């Protein structure tokens, strides 16, 4: 409508247009808040979250062959893998596997560098803990994931 600017100014047309926009957003169907503990957000397949050490499904032992590529690829150098050669099977076994979650920035370079895709970033995003020491994950925590920590006073 080509009302002269003066007329539009007098009849507060611009203010009413703004009011119309906010008015029609009032219906509860427009609200997009998720009630977090009850409604879980959808997490997509490539999400980079909690790291996990995969193990061979049938034989059960870890896929990791201690090639140390992930430790070298990590910008924060927070992965330390120790292993020593098992004379019988001529292959290296993992002795200790530490992952410092408090410094990790979830860039995914370690998962890319892993040659046997033992290390993988899963879709789990609930990693809150109460102590900084708890952040240093050992092999067990990496394989079966962290169990949520109950808040105890």
């Amino acid at each position, binding site marked *: 409508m080509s009302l002269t600017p*003066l007329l539009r100014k007098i009849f507060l047309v611009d203010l009413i247009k703004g009011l119309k926009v906010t008015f029609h*957003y009032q219906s509860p169907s427009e609200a997009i808040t998720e009630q977090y503990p009850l409604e879980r957000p959808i997490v997509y*397949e*490539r*999400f980079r979250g909690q790291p996990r050490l995969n193990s061979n499904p049938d034989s059960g032992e870890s896929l990791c062959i201690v090639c140390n590529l992930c430790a070298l690829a990590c*910008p924060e150098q927070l992965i330390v893998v120790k292993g020593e050669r098992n004379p019988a099977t001529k292959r290296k076994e993992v002795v200790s596997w530490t992952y410092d979650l408090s410094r990790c*920035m*979830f*860039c995914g370079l370690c998962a890319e560098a892993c040659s046997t895709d033992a290390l993988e970033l899963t879709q789990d995003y609930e990693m809150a803990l109460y102590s900084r020491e708890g952040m240093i994950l050992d092999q067990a925590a990496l394989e079966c994931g962290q169990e949520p920590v109950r808040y105890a006073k």
Partner: protein
Amino acid sequence: MTDTKDRTAYLDLDTKDETFLDATELVINMGPQHPSTHGVLRVILKLDGEKVLGTECVIGYLHRGVEKIGENRTYAMFNPYVDRMDYVASVSNGLGYCETVEKLLNVEAPPRAQYLRVILTELCRIASHQVWLGTHALDIGALTPLFYCFRDREEILKIFEKYCGARLTTHAFRIGGCLYEAYDGFEQDCKKFCDFFLPKLDEYEELLTTNRIWVERTKGVGILKPEDCIALGVTGPVLRASGVKWDLRKRQPYESYKDFDFDVPTGQNGDTYDRYLVRIEEMRQAVRIIRQASDRLPQGPIMAKVPKVIKPAVGEVYHSIEAPKGELGYFIVSDGSTQPYRVRVRPPSFVNLQALDKMVRGLLVADVVAVIGTLDIVLGEVDR
């Protein structure tokens, strides 16, 4: 109704030349914990009553030494750190860095990777402008645009999460192209977002563009003349709003920007209202680019032939891209080893912030908040 003469003339500002602090002057700290300084920026305001006589910015509260870290990481490892500088537009930081290293290696990303990169960078430009619009309107008092902007930005972040697994610090690109293949349905998602977003953009305009209070608060505030812009090295929407038609994507096309037609919006009198209009128009142009790119996404490899261990030849390269805030430049010196010898980042927000003092002189305290908002600075990028 809107005269474009300098609105602050009636403030009869006579900046005293001697800097003696007489009784009427009041020195006030704004920040570093201030709700409207977009992060940890401290502005020392010298006030004469309500009028601002001069400002001094104290920055460095968020200095993490990204350039020093760059010298101790290999080329591929430094990529995630680059996302943390301008955390609101992390994809374009990554694009700038990867392109500079590719130029150092004399390697060209394959066409499919270039198109993917253009789509993601334009999405990230829209996301960055949405964060700007939300916080800028909030500073001037309009509470609701913030929530509408963040609802629409959520769609973009979903596309990022589906594509590369992270929403904010995406680490989406690798040197030589893209690591992740576009998930099936990527083009449909982008097109669906474009159709969803344009009517929403008209709603922002309905709420703000003609609103008389908004026009009154932004027209003629923080005027920057074109020659001041060039002298101060200001780039991006702030420069274009002062009337200089300069966009790196057009003047020095990188990636595959030369394949798309989009126009560069410019303003006339370089005030906060023009910068608002320029950025809103830029969002529309970005939607146009995304549509063209997702229509013509070519098939083919997504990664150029780049050695596993990147050791560029001895030499140095400066390359810059058009980030949402302005010209984001990387100057990388390589000494032949796997780690860059020197990584220098030329951040647009750092240089644009210098213009704050010239824009704010003579305005009122409430306008300082509006001008900081219109400069669209992100302190992660200013302090590096």
